[in-house]
């Protein structure tokens, strides 16, 4: 059913008795043309675009838990396209453009809100790097501005401008950056995919892959054997484990990233900001909670939980940047398992197994990529050719020396 203000009003007057399920709960069929493994944001978006843009049919999404239960449901909701390198920026700008029309397309309000993101700098060298980046963004058709210290102060007068260990000198700003309601992104894609006939199958864990003569034939799951002509894997966090079923080792480590939210507060921070002299970034949700995070814990983990030192480190960054934060209370923390890749950039590519495609390695930046990742992965699966904006995300780039290393940290995943 189509959502609209009239619908909400009419249902309000009649006791909300007419709302329909946002998605069906179909039993898995014996086989599909395309099976997407992973009912997180990327998997759901992939299924949606396959059906919507590429005319594919007989599609299923297999989710081991609940739809949207991957990192799309545990992130800090930031969207931006402020990347430096030519392998990345066109892709993220494509994603931003998809965000900008997403809600009307999906008929679902995911609260995409372009309230602006600023990356603070504290040294001349950081400024120079941001000038380089801002220019790269504009050359790729994105927007960027350089704010000086006073420009930052006008936006956020409560930052520590007077007593900071690392003085704020300015910021790179992308006004089109912002946030989106993370769960709603998953639900919007799920609802739209379901409406296009995609089978969304929850509580269905893949336990094996049927590969014959180098070609994927189907999957073993906790809900039985499911045949497939093509299989796309989008299970960030667990990519290594799932692809091990196909005998592949990946350039990926799984790490835990914690994130945090405070109790609800009246509007305090309008946009998104990142601290340039510590690991801290923050925005405020429409409910009023300050949503913030920092660095990954730094060790391999599948535990979906972290430890105290990182919580302290993030709080220290917060207090160094916003001294008023001391009296806000941390309400809840959570942890997600990140696919940390060897250059900090993702992989959207074919694999050595024919018909098996991989979408992985999103590090802690997968949420903002959701629309473009889904679109480009669908393009790859449907046409067997990479989408032009994702052509650099190849699995063999490490062998060929074509890394996409925004931070310049090399093959040490926990430093990206």
């Amino acid at each position, binding site marked *: 059913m189509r959502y*609209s*203000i009239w619908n909400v009003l009419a249902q309000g*007057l009649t006791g*909300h008795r007419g*709302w329909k399920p946002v*998605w069906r709960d179909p039993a898995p069929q014996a086989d599909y043309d395309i099976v997407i493994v992973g009912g997180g944001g990327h998997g759901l978006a992939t299924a949606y675009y396959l059906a919507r843009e590429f005319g594919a049919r007989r599609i299923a999404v297999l989710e081991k838990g*609940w739809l*949207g239960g991957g990192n799309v*449901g545990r992130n800090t909701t930031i969207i931006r396209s402020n990347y430096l390198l030519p392998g990345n920026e066109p892709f993220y700008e494509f994603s931003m453009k998809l965000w900008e029309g997403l*809600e*009307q397309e999906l*008929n*679902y*309000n*995911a*609260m995409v*809100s*372009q309230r602006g993101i600023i990356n603070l700098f*504290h040294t001349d*060298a950081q*400024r*120079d790097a*941001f*000038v*380089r980046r*801002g*220019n790269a963004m504009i*050359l*790729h058709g994105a927007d*960027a501005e350089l704010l000086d210290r006073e420009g930052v102060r006008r936006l956020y007068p409560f930052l520590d401008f007077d*007593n*900071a*260990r*690392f003085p704020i000198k300015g910021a790179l700003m992308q006004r089109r950056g912002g946030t989106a*309601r993370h769960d709603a992104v998953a639900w919007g894609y799920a609802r739209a995919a379901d409406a296009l006939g995609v089978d969304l199958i929850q509580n269905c864990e893949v336990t094996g892959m049927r590969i014959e003569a180098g070609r994927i034939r189907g999957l073993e799951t906790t809900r039985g054997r499911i045949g497939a002509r093509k299989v796309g894997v989008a299970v960030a966090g667990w990519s290594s484990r799932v692809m091990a079923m196909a005998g592949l080792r990946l350039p990926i480590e799984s790490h835990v990233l914690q994130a945090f939210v405070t109790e609800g*507060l*009246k509007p305090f921070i309008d946009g998104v900001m990142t601290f340039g*002299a510590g690991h801290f970034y923050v925005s*405020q949700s*429409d*409910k*009023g909670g300050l949503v913030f995070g920092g660095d990954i814990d730094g060790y391999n983990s599948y535990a979906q*939980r972290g430890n*105290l030192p990182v919580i*302290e480190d993030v709080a*220290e960054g917060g*207090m*160094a940047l916003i001294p*008023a*934060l*001391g*009296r*806000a*209370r941390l309400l*809840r923390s959570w942890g997600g398992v990140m696919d940390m890749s060897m250059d900090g950039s993702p992989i959207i590519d074919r694999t050595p197994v024919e018909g098996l495609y991989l979408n992985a390695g999103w590090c802690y930046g997968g949420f903002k990529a959701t629309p473009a990742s889904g679109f480009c992965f669908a393009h790859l699966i449907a046409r067997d050719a990479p989408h032009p904006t994702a052509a650099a995300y190849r699995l063999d780039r490490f062998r060929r*020396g074509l*890394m996409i*290393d925004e931070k310049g940290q*090399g*093959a040490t995943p926990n430093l990206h």
Partner: protein
Amino acid sequence: MSGPFRLPSGGLIDRGRTLRFTFDGRAFAGHPGDTLASALLAGGVRLMGRSFKYHRPRGPLSAGSEEPNALVTLRSGARAEPNTRATVAEIYDGLQATSQNRWPSLRFDLMAVNDLIHPFLAAGFYYKTFMWPARFWERLYEPLIRRAAGLGRLSGEADPDGYDKGFRHCDLLVIGAGPAGLMAALTAGRAGARVILADEDFLPGGRLNAERLEVADMPGADWAAAVVAELAALPNLRLMPRTTVIGAFDHGIYGAVERVADHLPEPPPGRPRQVLWRIYARRAVLAAGATERPIAFPGNDRPGVMLAGAMRAYANRWAVAAGRRVALFVNNEDGLRTAADLAERGVEVVAVIDARPEGARLPGLRHLRGAEVVATAGRLGLRSVTLRHSDGRRETIAADALGVSGGWNPNLQLTVHHRGRPRWDEAIAAFVPGPGGPPGLAAAGAAAGLMSTHGALASGRARALEALADLGIAARAADLPRAEDAPVSLRPVWHVAGARGRAWIDQQNDVTVKDIALAHAENFTGAEHLKRYTTLGMATDQGRTGNVIGLAVMAGLTGRSIAETGTTAARPPYTPVAIGALAGRSRGKAFRPVRLTPSHRWAEEQGAVFVEAGLWLRTQYIPRPGETHWRQSVDREVLATRASVGICDVSTLGKIDIQGADAGAFLDRVYANTFSTLPVGRCRYGIMLREDGIVFDDGTTARLAEDEWVMTTTTANAVAVFRHLEFCRQCLWPALDVQLISTTEAWAQYSVAGPNARRLLERIVDQDISDAAFPYMAAGRVTVCGGLRARLFRISFSGELAYEIAVPARYGDGLIRALVEAGRDFDAVVYGTEALGVLRVEKGHVAGGELNGQMTALNMGLGRMVSRKKDAIGVVLSGREGLTDPGGHRLVGVRPVDPSAGLTAGSHLLEPGAAKVAENDLGWLTSKVYSPHLGHDIALAYLRGGEARIGSRMRAVNLLAGTETEVEITSPHFIDPQGERLRG
């Protein structure tokens, strides 16, 4: 008497002292021992807050940290604390509290219009609308939503209070000082184990303080006080009241926050407001008790409706009557205690509405079996309760307070911090700790689902004995004091069926039974979907009061069991924690340590301007009288250095001593170029690659003796390079005879550069340093100033005749003064990092902007340094196709065609006439300085096909500023490309 609702006697308050405070400007009084909620209730105030969505009037639901409704802003100005639970805030003389999330006043809140239009604001309504037109979201809809959302307000001012952190260790951490915790602590304490007993309350005793139950034939509170007195006297036990254990982390590490001064107007001088403790516990007993849950029925959120156990606590502990005419609605035996206690204290109990049809009736009270509450009335406070008798007959009873008990949920949160799953216990209709809890943590008492006092005491003792046995600590089982062991006798009633009107489940977030039904209709039926769609359990109580009810209602709709419906994971912190406490002292200037250079004191005396370089504070430049712009100072420092001599503190460079018979072979493997052939007494520039072939670091390494070398690294990479070398030494080539030690802090090192550098140093160094005796790239041990041991290196970053001289760090201050004195005749200058940057860019040396972790030696024009004749880190992978592109980026120089035009680092390089799009982007300016020597800006740049473009003209485009400059591509060596000066 402090208020009309204060009972004439009893309570654990000090009636001898009166504390005065205000709420929304109105004056009240209370006593030591009161919370803000107890004192306000005593003063006749029931309305304390407004709900999140509908702005419904609300009073306290609870008497503890789970409070969802009575949230106030405590204190004012920079100390204002939004969302403080009135139920746990201790009052002090002069306390100021303000209600929040209302306008213009708590009693008359215009935003309560939301309550009138509630049919349109059901769960998730915002996902279905506000989409047209698209740009109205940021401009209209969202600002309205944001303004309405949120609870309290941050002041925006810097938190004036201090916070601290500490570490504590123990054999047994006991979390909670109720009967189970006290018994556990007593057992372990008497056994001599190191025990920490932490309790979130300011008064240990837990529920014993809230009950009239007897323990060991005395009032429970007295027994608790006696045990606490014994514990306090034990040298091996630390009692930590006002301390909440917020999280169970790995390997027995617990986070705990102690509220040191929240009960005072402000922290005493020198004392923190709160302390974050990291407690290392070999074993832990979770004795955190249980949280009572309400029942969902229409109008169950009015001020005056509260948990029965809270009502009892207010009467017994604080001697406060929740109302004049009190009704109760219960489904279990414990709720009846409230009726008995209130009656005993002389409060009129008008009805006990008991959902259980069978069983004995309370004597002397109107105990209605098989009845349920179906409606309430009263806008700003409860006036009446409508009930439905077992025969279906309805009756409305005037009442100003209604105590509700739907059973108790164990406070098992810490047991699921490691992602363990709780287990559903039918007997108490609640989740209890399940498998997968933190190793070493065991739950006791109500936290374990044992709801009687006897059960708490016995399990507390048992869990402690087990922990001690595990640790090999001999212990004796203390006698168990006599205590009640009543059954729970609960009949689950989650919500009252067949009653019209909204029944609240999550009171703060305004989640009602209808919202759960809506979520069900739309297929958001799992625990996580339910939570995320309706916001159930996402309020500041983290679902402690509402979660289980919501899940149970959903289970009823789906026909699944509650266990199958599942629960969401509890995550740290157990209760919300001030971010200040988590940050401790690391804020402001103390955010990170400051490293000072050996010349810092001298530079300060000269009025130097300093700049942050990582943790270091370095001299940026030293202005002289009359210089009003930094460029004047920097230009002078540069020109004076090139004209005569300049001195610069370079102690921040990493310094690593490398010794052993295989040190040369080791260096050959960690540097891309060869070192083993270096003669003693010489040094060489080296580039170090990462294993992926990208340049990691550069610097010079000197051979001081056959088996003794000293390496320098960049300032930024000093720590990382040392770590990498240790990795190579210990993990890759463990049998090489080589030893490493970082000596960065051990040596003060100064660069002395310029045509008069030798003449200056000859006055300092005791040995012959003529060009013949100490040629370019010589290195060795010398003495200075008549015998002080020193190291001298003839190396140059500036392109001038230059040396670096190092003395033990404690002589660094002396040496800078001696160098300045010796240089007086030469008009020597001391230059800072700005001039250092100018000198190195003029000479074309790579540094931060070029050593960015993305570039190869080939990119830097140093490709020939990578020796393929030996095995060295990074050499193999530096040969990959993507890193050897002949048309790839190369380091070049850039100068403006018009010398008066400025350059900006970060500008991109485009061909003349090329459109400003990414396809035409050929490179960027990495570092830019003004060269006073050349009289114009110069820059280094990475440019595609750079070498071939030298001499050509391009455009340096800075789209951020909307500028572009015509530039000429040059060699990166702007000055003395043949290197004649440095060999002088």
